[in-house]
């Protein structure tokens, strides 16, 4: 049994990889934003990276080497001055050994960091630039160590040292990794604000700096910025270096986003996509689950009844009604329900939208639950009826198949009461295929709930997605497709596992699927 479950879970892995590939295909289809490959919009989509394999992944060290190589060949080297003080430990010790053109380039890159690193006296007192940097690095060498920065950040968060912030500013971009990591700590608002202030000082050109220190979205914006720009400021270690051939690619970054739930920030309101996905997704999943449960609970007795009374009045009535309902599009039923019973403009028996009545915000819990059920009735109904019809048809044909079997005839022949035949022989054998099909309903329900949410103004994934389409919010759209597909995979998985639980035959066959 356990082995079967484990095997089924293992099969999910390639399916999930497939889901990441499908959602990645959407990402690749996104047209490149204006401003070229180096622009912020392109970089946040990782358009500057190769798709699957990177022959020469770049980090800070690789950039510097490439630039030095260019100067040696007399080519114009890129300006890396914006990288700031991280360049100091890379360039300063090598300065004296560099050929003249490379030396000139290196000094130019170091220039912007001089003001922060050196005191007034040092700036004035130094002879030429080369001598200045060699001496400066000699005296500051011990400061450019990760452990030192970590100590400073710790002191900054604790708020007991006034010098910590000053010293971090002196170290400039070299302190970025530790500062961004500090945002993940469970700190108070004060400590977080101090960290954000220093971050804003260190890289004033980064887009998150524009949000300001007090904005609640700022920490996530900095994390997202760092996720994109980390290779600009960090020298990869040997392990990361070798892994980066696959991780520093568009697909690698997409997988990293999914695994770390760092799905970027929404273009609609600048909030973190992952957080919004959870809060809105809960509503959609609840809606779909309610609809699936309602459909299943009604479909099983209905399908069984129509199968037992085959060609009777009830069967024919349900058959005809089912056909009509089955052909009624949700989009029309929703529109009509909204107009007829939700007071837009017909009778106001049910609320026209939303999940709660704002007037009842301070009412007691039971009142609010009733209010919630009241708001959900029509949406769940219009979501559930197609599944109800489909599942009851499947249930009917499954029962019909079983009822004709020899063991049912045997059971009846030996005098087992009809209700026990039905319960123990028919239903137990008819249910498993229907449960599998109920699992298949999950992706359909999630898709349809997009429509229902939009019609009934329910704040779920669907409404958010419609807003995202209008805003061309690629981050949200790709993430929501992947999330919905993953929910669908889980639905299929649950269907199969349930069947394995109730049906001993699948266990013996050793596989959950036909």
């Amino acid at each position, binding site marked *: 049994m356990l082995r079967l479950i484990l095997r089924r879970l293992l099969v999910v892995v390639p399916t999930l990889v*497939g889901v990441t590939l499908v959602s990645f295909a959407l990402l690749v289809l996104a047209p490149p934003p204006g401003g070229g490959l180096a622009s912020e919009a392109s970089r946040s989509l990782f358009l500057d990276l190769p798709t699957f394999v990177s022959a020469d992944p770049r980090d800070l060290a690789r950039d510097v080497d490439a630039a030095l190589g260019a100067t040696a060949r007399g080519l114009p080297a890129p300006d890396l001055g914006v990288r700031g003080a991280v360049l100091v430990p890379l360039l300063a010790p090598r300065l004296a050994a560099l050929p003249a053109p490379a030396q000139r380039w290196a000094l130019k890159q170091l220039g912007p960091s001089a003001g922060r690193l050196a005191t007034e006296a040092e700036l004035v007192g130094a002879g030429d630039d080369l001598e200045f940097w060699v001496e400066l690095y000699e005296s500051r060498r011990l400061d450019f160590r990760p452990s030192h920065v970590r100590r400073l950040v710790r002191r900054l968060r604790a708020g007991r040292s006034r010098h910590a912030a000053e010293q971090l500013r002196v170290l400039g971009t070299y302190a970025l990794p530790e500062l961004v990591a500090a945002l993940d700590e469970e700190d108070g608002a004060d400590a977080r604000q101090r960290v954000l202030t220093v971050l804003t000082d260190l890289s004033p050109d980064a887009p998150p700096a524009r949000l300001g220190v007090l904005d609640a979205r700022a920490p996530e914006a900095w994390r997202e910025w760092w996720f994109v720009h980390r290779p600009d400021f960090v020298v990869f270690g040997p392990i990361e270096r070798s892994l980066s051939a696959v991780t520093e690619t568009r697909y690698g970054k997409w997988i990293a986003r999914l695994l770390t739930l760092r799905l970027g920030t929404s273009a609609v309101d600048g909030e973190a996509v992952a957080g919004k996905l959870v809060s809105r997704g809960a509503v959609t999943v609840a809606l779909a689950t309610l609809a699936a449960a309602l459909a299943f609970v009604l479909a099983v007795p209905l399908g069984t009844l129509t199968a037992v009374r085959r060609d009777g009045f009830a069967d024919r009535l349900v*058959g005809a009604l089912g*056909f009509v309902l*089955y052909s009624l599009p949700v989009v029309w039923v929703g529109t009509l329900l909204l107009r007829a019973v939700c007071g837009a403009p017909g009778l106001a028996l049910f609320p026209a939208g939303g999940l709660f009545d704002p007037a009842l915000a301070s009412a007691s819990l039971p009142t609010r639950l009733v209010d919630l059920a009241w708001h959900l009735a029509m949406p769940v109904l219009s979501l559930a009826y197609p599944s109800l019809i489909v599942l009851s048809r499947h249930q009917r044909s499954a029962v019909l198949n079983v009822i004709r079997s020899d063991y049912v005839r045997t059971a009846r022949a030996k005098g087992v009461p009809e209700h026990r035949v039905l319960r123990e022989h028919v239903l137990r054998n008819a249910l498993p295929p229907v449960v599998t099909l109920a699992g298949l309903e999950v992706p359909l329900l999630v898709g349809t709930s997009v429509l229902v949410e939009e*019609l009934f103004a329910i704040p779920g994934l669907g409404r958010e997605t419609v807003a995202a389409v209008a805003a061309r919010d690629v981050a949200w*759209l790709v993430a929501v497709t992947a999330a919905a597909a993953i929910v669908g995979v889980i639905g299929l998985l649950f269907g199969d596992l349930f069947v394995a639980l109730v049906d001993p035959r699948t266990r013996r066959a050793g596989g959950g699927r036909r």
Partner: protein
Amino acid sequence: MRLSERPSQIAGFVRARIRQRAGTLRVLWRTRRARVGIAGLGVLLVLALLADVLASPAPSLRVLEAPSLAHWLGTDGRGRDVLACLVHGTRAGLSVGLVSAALVVGAGVALGAVSGFYGGRLDTFLTRTIEVLLSVPTILAVLALRGITGQSGLLDVAVVFGVLRWTDVARMTRAEVLRARNSDFALAAHALGLTPRQVLWRHVLPDAVSPAVVAAPIAMGAAIVVDASLAMLGAPEPAGVVTWGALLAGARLHKDAWWLAVFPGFALFASVASFNLVSESLRDALDPHLRAMAVPGTETPRSRGVAGPTTRSQDRVGR
């Protein structure tokens, strides 16, 4: 087998096949449901072909007029006659449906047959692919694609629908091909020296296409509904095309215009119902067990929805 016998044999085979097909059609036509469904589709087709002759959905100043003798079904927010719009909307609906169904059936039969007949690693790969695509909600995928690429042509919906939803047909075809491949007649064909490809094309596939034939009309209806749902979700009406979905979406804007909510939705319902009727009758006609019951003189089979193995997964593909 002597070579000289072959022509007569082939002729006999062809005759038998024609008889079989004609028999299917005759059985199909015998039920009332099938006749209603086929008549509905015929009306759709005629309206689509003659749309320009019958009515013109030109915008006018008579905006949002209630149904009257001049405008039988009223006018919409741009002053277009709703009846004329419904007539012209059949074109968009049928083209979306046809392209989607062609993709769904073509890809589904081809990949399902290859997967079931040859098996092996290809089968595993295709089965996994199907599982992945089954998990992606169609409406969400089309919506996401529209938001990402910024395009929303009529055929984009159809293509995405086809690319995502061939999976149901492929699953059913695969199961049928598996069954037919292991049957005695396939073994006999193989023993006669036919190559695997010949066995697949001449013997296995003809016996395994009925789920795809049944699924095609359902796919057409489902694609039309998906297109209408997308209009409700804010997809702009493509330039120069009238769609039922866009008309229905107008009902959200103009709350007093009940005729915008009722008539386009009914058109949608009527065409989906026709497609479903045709599909169900096709299923009954193609099912050998039920066909045996439908011999002349006896009553038509009453047992709607009795499922043989082929009908087990009549999934509809969208709503």
